[in-house]
């Protein structure tokens, strides 16, 4: 049976089609999920895509977090279903308290859009098994409110438990993708929950899956990783 990976569309989602395409290129069947529909249609994993759900009103992700589909996603995530939140999806996961911390306005106040170098720190989550710890990848990054913040105690806990999934690479030219693009604490680009099934990531792996449109194809690993994890489960 083909692995089914759901991609939620909220009003204002932008990257749902690209996420579906990445799922397909990884070899799984993408299933479109609608924000008002509680039913996850028997999917094995869920991607919350990037965009500006509900116009980012109130706070990014604050309104989507209470949508009907999220009730089921939160419930299933707690039972171990793999969930990947990219960009706005990461914001939704933090607002849902499936992940700690919050994403705030970039320190520069500018919207940053560029190809970004990352180091994969944890290659044992449901979404990063096809990478190796320490591997460097380049994927697009585009956000205005991507600055990950949490109190020092939470940050220490994340580090101690190996729950930082990816970090922005410091040093070097911004034009070459180096440096912290938004002031995220400890250069954090992505984190996971304690169980490793829920991952939030600010940069966009779904835009780096084909040579024609991406800077690399190094984002595909997130989608092939979860597929492998589900097939082997």
């Amino acid at each position, binding site marked *: 049976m083909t692995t089914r990976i759901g991609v939620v569309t909220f009003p204002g989602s932008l990257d749902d089609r690209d996420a579906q395409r990445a799922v397909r290129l990884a070899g799984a069947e993408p299933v479109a999920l609608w924000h008002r529909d509680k039913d996850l249609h028997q999917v094995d994993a869920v991607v919350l895509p990037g965009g500006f759900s509900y116009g980012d009103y109130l706070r990014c992700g604050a309104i989507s977090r209470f949508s009907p589909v999220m009730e089921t996603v939160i419930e299933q995530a707690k039972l171990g279903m793999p969930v990947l939140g990219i960009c706005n999806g990461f914001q939704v996961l933090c607002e849902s308290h499936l992940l700690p*911390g*919050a994403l705030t306005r*970039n320190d520069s*106040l500018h919207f940053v859009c560029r190809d970004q170098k990352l180091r994969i720190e944890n290659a044992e989550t449901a979404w990063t098994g096809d990478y190796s710890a320490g591997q460097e990848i380049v994927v697009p990054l585009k956000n205005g409110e991507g*600055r990950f913040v949490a109190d020092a105690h939470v940050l220490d806990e994340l580090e101690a438990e190996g729950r930082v999934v990816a970090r922005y690479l410091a040093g070097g030219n911004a034009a070459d993708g180096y440096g912290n693009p938004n002031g995220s604490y400890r250069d954090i680009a992505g984190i996971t929950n304690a169980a490793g099934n829920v991952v939030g990531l600010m940069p966009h792996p779904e835009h780096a899956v084909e040579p024609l449109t991406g800077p690399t194809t190094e984002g595909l690993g997130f989608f092939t990783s979860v597929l492998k994890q589900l097939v082997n489960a």
Partner: protein
Amino acid sequence: MARVVVDVMLKPEILDPQGQAVQRALPRLGFTGIADVRQGKRFELELEGPVDDAALARIREAAETFLANTVIEDFTVRVEEAAK
């Protein structure tokens, strides 16, 4: 109708780049002597019924779960005096 005001502010330890940008612009416009600016949100809630303890408790709950993200923000709830 009674009005309840919820003010939401970033916690003091959270950087407020918007407030900083406003602060930097003030002296350029001739408004000097302002040491710090923090920017927040104000919600005005018009109640259908009376402002009693139960109503205020519900509003505090709404503020805590929805209007503010208590990971990064503090909030205050107050009843606004009716306009004379």
